[in-house]
C-alpha cells in the first residue's frame, strides 16, 4: 500500500503536536490550581507548590544511628506512640563468613528497636565476627511512580507539584490500600485519626522556609534536604549528587524513588 502523506495531514499533525506541547504546562498549572483549591495541606496560603521541587538524600556513611531524627519526627508531627513511624533508622550488621565456608559474607542481621529512638542493644555477635555494620535512615522514598498514589480509591493521597507525596486527612477513608501498596513500609494507619499517615517532608515546615525536623536535628548531616528548582551549585543537595555514586531502594519495582542513598549495601531493602 502506498503511504500517502498530504500537506494537510502534515500540518494537522504538526499543529496537534504543538498544541500538545503547549497544553502540557497549562494542564500542569490547572492541576496545581485545582489541588490548591480542593485539597487540604499544611502549607501557608501564599505558598506556590509549582515553584519548588523538594527532595531529600541520605548519606549513610555519615549516619551514627543516634535516632534523633526519628525522635524529632515523632514529636514534630505528633506521631502516635507505638509501632508508628514516619522515619526510622535501621542497623545492619553483616557478619564475616565462617572460615572454610567458601562464602564471601556471613549473615545479615537487621534491627530497629522503637525506630532507633532509644538506641540499639549490643550487637548480637562478637565484635571480631562483624564484617560491616552501618545505619540506614528510612523515610518516604518520594517515588515518581508512587504505587500508594496509584491505588488510593478516592485520590486522598497525591503527588504534590513540589515533589512531596501527601495525604489529605479530611478525605482519606482509611481503607489501608496505600499501606499495602507501599513497598518500603513507610505508611501506617493512625490509631488516632483512623487515616493513613506518612512522611510529608514536614510540609508545614518546608513551605515556610524551614528544614524538615529530622534534617534540622541530624548532628552529622547524613540527611541532606534541598529544593532542586532553586538550588545553586554549592548547595549541599547538588554537592551530594556531584560527589557520590547513589542508589535507590528496590529499583526493580519501577517506583523510581527520588530519595537517593549513598554508602549503602546491596542487603538494604
Amino acid at each position: 500500500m502506498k503511504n500517502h502523506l498530504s500537506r494537510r495531514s502534515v500540518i494537522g499533525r504538526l499543529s496537534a503536536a504543538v498544541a500538545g506541547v503547549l497544553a502540557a504546562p497549562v494542564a500542569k498549572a490547572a492541576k496545581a490550581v485545582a489541588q490548591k483549591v480542593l485539597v487540604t495541606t499544611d502549607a501557608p496560603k501564599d505558598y506556590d507548590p509549582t515553584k519548588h521541587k523538594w527532595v531529600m538524600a541520605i548519606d549513610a556513611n555519615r549516619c551514627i544511628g543516634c535516632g534523633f531524627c526519628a525522635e524529632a519526627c515523632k514529636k514534630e508531627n505528633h506521631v502516635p506512640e507505638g509501632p508508628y513511624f514516619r522515619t526510622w533508622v535501621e542497623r545492619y550488621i553483616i557478619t564475616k563468613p565462617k572460615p572454610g565456608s567458601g562464602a564471601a559474607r556471613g549473615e545479615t542481621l537487621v534491627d530497629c528497636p522503637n525506630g532507633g529512638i532509644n538506641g540499639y542493644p549490643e550487637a548480637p555477635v562478637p565484635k571480631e565476627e562483624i564484617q560491616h555494620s552501618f545505619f540506614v535512615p528510612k523515610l518516604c522514598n518520594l517515588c515518581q511512580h508512587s504505587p500508594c498514589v496509584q491505588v488510593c480509591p478516592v485520590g486522598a493521597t497525591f503527588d504534590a507539584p513540589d515533589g512531596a507525596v501527601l495525604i489529605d486527612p479530611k478525605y482519606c477513608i482509611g481503607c489501608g490500600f496505600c499501606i499495602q501498596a507501599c513497598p518500603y513500609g513507610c505508611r501506617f494507619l493512625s490509631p488516632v485519626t483512623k487515616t493513613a499517615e506518612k512522611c510529608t517532608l514536614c510540609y508545614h515546615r518546608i513551605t515556610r522556609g524551614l528544614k524538615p525536623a529530622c534534617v534540622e536535628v541530624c548532628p552529622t548531616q547524613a540527611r541532606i534536604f534541598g529544593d532542586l528548582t532553586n538550588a545553586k551549585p554549592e548547595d549541599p543537595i547538588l554537592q551530594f549528587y556531584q560527589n557520590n555514586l547513589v542508589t535507590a531502594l528496590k529499583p526493580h519495582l519501577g517506583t523510581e524513588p527520588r530519595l537517593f542513598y549513598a554508602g549503602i549495601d546491596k542487603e538494604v531493602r
Partner: protein
Amino acid sequence: MTNELTNLVVEVMPRFEGYVYPNEATQQPLWSILIVLYPYITGLVAGAFIMASLVRVFNVKALEPVYRLSLLTAFAFLLCAPLPLLFHLGHPERCFEVMMTPHLTSPMAIFGFVYAWYLMAVLLLELWFDYRRDFVAWSESTPGFKGLLYRLFTVGVTDVSAPAVQLDHKIGHILSVVGIPSAFLLHGYVGFIFGSVKANPWWGNVLMPIIFIMSAMVSGIALCVFNYMVLTWIRRKTVDMKCLDVMGMYLFYALVVDTAIEGLDWIHRIYSAEEGFRVIQYMAREKLFYTLSLGQVACGTLVPLILLGLLQLARRRVPELARRRMYFVGASLILMGVLAMRWNVVIGGQLFSKSLRGVMGYKMGFAGLEGWFMGAVLLCLPFVVLTVMVKLFLSEHDQK
C-alpha cells in the same frame, strides 16, 4: 491468679521472627478477617450467578430446580458483600467518596462501579423480570402484608399477557448473557485488588484475577449444592438426583480447572524462585501449614477432587444415599477450602515483612470488629437474608 491472666495476655502479643519494618509491627494485620470475608462472599455471588446462567444461557435443563435458588443466593450474598469492606474502613462515613470522587487508577475505586453495575443493572433486573409474572399472581392471591409486599414488587406493572411475558423472558435472557462477563469482572476485579500490589510478592501476580474467578465459580457452585440440599432437607422434600448429579459434574470440572491454575501458579513461583521466594516458602511450610496444606490443599481440594471424581467415574454403581452424602461432604469441604484460600491470600500476604527479612505472628481474637464473633456474624448474615428471600420468593410447591 491475676498474674497468670496477665501472662496470658502477654502471650498473645504479636511475635516477630527476623526483621520487620517498624510500621509492620502492629498487633494484627492491617487487613484481617473482614477482608478475608469480602472476597469470599463476592466469590460466592459470582459463582452462584454462573450456576444460574447455566440454565438460562446454556440451557442446561437438568439444573432448572436450582435456577431460582441460585439467583436468590447470588442476590442475598451480593447485598452483604460490601458490609465487611465498609466495616473495616477507618472512616466508613466517607465511603461514598469512592463513588462520588473515584480515583480511576485504583482497583478499589473501580470495584465500586462494578459492584453497583452488577447489583443494580444485572442481578436486580434479572430477578425482577424473572419474577414479574409471579409477583402479579401472588399479589392477587396473597392476603395481608405479604400480599402488599408482592404488590409493591410489581411496581405497578401488572400486564401478564403472552407478549409481555415473552418480552420478560427475552430481557431476562439478555441480562443473563450480560451477567456472565459481569460476574467475571466482579470477581476478577477483587483478584486484581490483590494481584496489583507489586510490593507484595505473595499477592502481586498476574494469575491472581484468574485464580479468584475460578475459585469463585467452584465455591459458588458448591454453595448452590449446599443450599439446595439443606433446603430440601428442611422442607422434607426429595432431592432431584439428576439435578444434583449435573451440579456435581460442573463442580468437579470447575474444581479441576481451579486446581490446575493454582498449581500452575505454585509451579511458576517455585521454578522462578524470585526475590521473595524464601520467605514465601517459609510461610507455606510454617506459618500457613494448617490453613494452606491441610485446609486449602488436602481438605479443600484433594478430598473433594477424589470424592467428586469417583462419582464421575462410577456414578451408577454408587447408591443414591451415598451419592447425596458424597456431594454434600464434597461441597462443604470446598466451601471451607475456598475460605481457607481467601485466608491464606489475605492474611498470608501480611504475615511476612515487605523487607522480606522477617515474619509476624497473628492470633485472631474473639471479640471486637476484627474477631471471630464478628466474622461468624458476617458470614451468617447472607444466609439469614437468603432465608427471608426463600420464604418470600421460593414457595414449596414451586420447588419440584
